[in-house]
């Protein structure tokens, strides 16, 4: 944070306006239906100033506090994922002309670029993983189109939820990289760091001031405090061998008694990328749209091959989730697929905690490769 500049609180609107002026559609955190969601944001007055999120396994409540801060909360059900990997999206269309010929056309997204305000460290780590999945081996045109224009204003976390454990995965609470601008919120305003050329371009439009030593120390201390507040952790950063040595562990059956196989965990997980594709023909049968939508290893379609459901039972599905996320992800992307956001814990309707399940299966230090 050595080079952070200071942006007075009232000047945050200038940042939003600068981004709009550059052609971005700005999305940021807003309170809707009892949660903090990323939605269209034009006015800083719509930020969740004074709100805190109280999160527990299976429970999320917003509470009013007397702070005037706008980012004194952890996160809502979704981060950046739905902005780039859309929950439902058309991939291509096909049309049959009068002579019976079929004409195919790709549906490449044409929306204006997005600027997202308030991305967290875990969101950035997850985005990096999603980039590797959707851009590296085979470039996904829809994801690439949404991703190319994305401008990211990160905010370092100062108020983790009880379900957060990004310290133990090494992904937070400080947003280390992958942002265009990063903010630290102080009572009087924001410290602002530049992370890219695009970020520098926007920063030049802002009425920045020099930051003081005290301000920078305060910001550092708040991030350190956020790290110290976390109580949950995974029993190790690489549980691959331990998980695969325990494929018959009785805990898989036990968790299946509690698990609803509802797919909420994979839907809120910022790194999950599974999707299903489907053709939606028009009623007259002359055209069709090929659509993909979020799927989950908790659905039967996820493991249906030629009409046979390979993972019919919940225990097998839960095992797929954990052994992929914390196990074979290491083979795929050289690290675990968990960035420690804790969303799957909070948004699980029955409050199943993957850190607890991982400990039960892999042992308290992840050593359970017996």
């Amino acid at each position, binding site marked *: 944070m050595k080079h952070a500049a200071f942006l007075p609180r009232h000047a945050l609107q200038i940042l939003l306006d600068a981004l709009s002026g550059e052609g971005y559609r700005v999305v940021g955190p807003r309170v809707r*239906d009892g949660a903090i969601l990323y939605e269209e944001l034009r006015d800083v007055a719509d930020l969740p100033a004074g709100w805190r999120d109280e999160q527990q396994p299976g429970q*999320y409540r917003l509470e009013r506090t007397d702070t005037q801060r706008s980012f004194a909360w952890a996160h809502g059900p979704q981060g950046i994922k739905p902005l780039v990997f859309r929950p439902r999206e058309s991939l291509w269309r096909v049309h049959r002309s009068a002579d019976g010929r079929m004409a195919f056309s790709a549906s490449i997204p044409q929306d204006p670029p997005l600027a997202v305000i308030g991305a967290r460290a875990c969101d950035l780590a997850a985005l990096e993983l999603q980039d590797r999945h959707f851009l590296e081996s085979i470039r996904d045109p829809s994801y690439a189109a949404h991703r190319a224009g994305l401008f990211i204003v990160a905010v370092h976390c100062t108020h983790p939820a009880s379900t957060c454990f990004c310290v133990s995965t090494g992904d937070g609470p400080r947003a280390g990289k992958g942002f265009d601008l990063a903010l630290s919120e102080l009572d009087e305003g924001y410290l602002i760091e530049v992370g890219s050329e695009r970020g520098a371009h926007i920063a030049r439009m802002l009425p920045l001031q020099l930051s003081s030593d005290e301000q920078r120390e305060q910001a550092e201390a708040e991030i350190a405090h956020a790290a110290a507040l976390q109580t949950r952790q995974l029993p190790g950063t690489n549980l691959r061998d331990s998980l695969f040595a325990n494929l018959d562990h009785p805990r898989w059956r036990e968790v299946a008694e509690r698990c609803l196989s509802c797919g909420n965990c994979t839907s809120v997980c910022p790194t999950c990328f599974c999707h299903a594709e489907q053709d939606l023909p028009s*009623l007259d049968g002359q055209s069709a749209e090929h659509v993909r939508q979020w*799927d989950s290893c908790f659905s039967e379609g996820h493991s249906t091959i030629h009409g046979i459901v390979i993972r019919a039972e919940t225990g097998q599905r839960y095992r797929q989730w954990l052994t992929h996320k914390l196990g074979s992800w290491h083979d795929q992307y050289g690290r675990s697929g968990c960035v420690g956001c804790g969303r799957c814990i909070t948004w699980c*309707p029955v409050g199943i905690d993957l850190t607890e399940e991982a400990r039960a299966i892999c042992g308290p230090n992840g050593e359970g490769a017996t």
Partner: protein
Amino acid sequence: MSKPRIAVHKFSSCDGCQLAFLNAGEDLLTLGALVDIRHFLEAGFAEEGAEVDIAFVEGSISTPDEVERIRRVRANSRHLVTLGACATAGGLQALRNLDDSNEDWKQAIYAQPEFIHTLAHAEPVHAHVKVDFELWGCPVNGRQVLAAVRQLLFGVAPLDERDKVCMECKRQHAVCVMVTQGKPCMGPVTRTGCGALCPRFGRDCYACFGPAENANTAALARRLEGLGLPPVDIARRFLFINSQAPAFREEGLRHYPPGFADD
């Protein structure tokens, strides 16, 4: 080539599911051009005995006449598709099956009960004849029904949408009402198809599309108990619109206290 013939038959029901056709707007005109509608009383076509390629059946089987009539419909139809909760799982009227109260209700409600000829139980169509495809929902919606029609016209089995409502709830960016408000949402055990309509409007799913695949009803019942629901209310969550669907019936009856019917 002659156009495929279809029929829409009504049994014991509120007529609401047939509106999926009648409210289809422009699609109804498209459909009219694609098929030959032979029987559909609500739309003014009356040829009950017509042989058809696809018969849609709304309503449960709850009278001796209906037992006979559904057999004739089956004999006259290449494909038989149920339309909605009544035809698929008995519907609301099947609540009377739970405590064999049909006689009592008849006596209590009708001035001259001797003219009312009903069966003791209201039953889903599959209890009487073979059903080729079941469309769940109370009511079904146009998207769902027309998709099934299109697939049948292509000559393929319609896609059976069996995932949980929760998955669609998250795709729609609805905020979970169970996690944020402690509402007794049935989404985790309920079949998708409605577009997560209730959670999108801030209320809890009441399971009108029936059980999803691999529904862990016992785990949800424990969660509802944790939210403070007494057994009778847990029973009501499961034994409502689709009380004859086995997964809901079994779970509901586990919480169904003696004397429930009298409270």
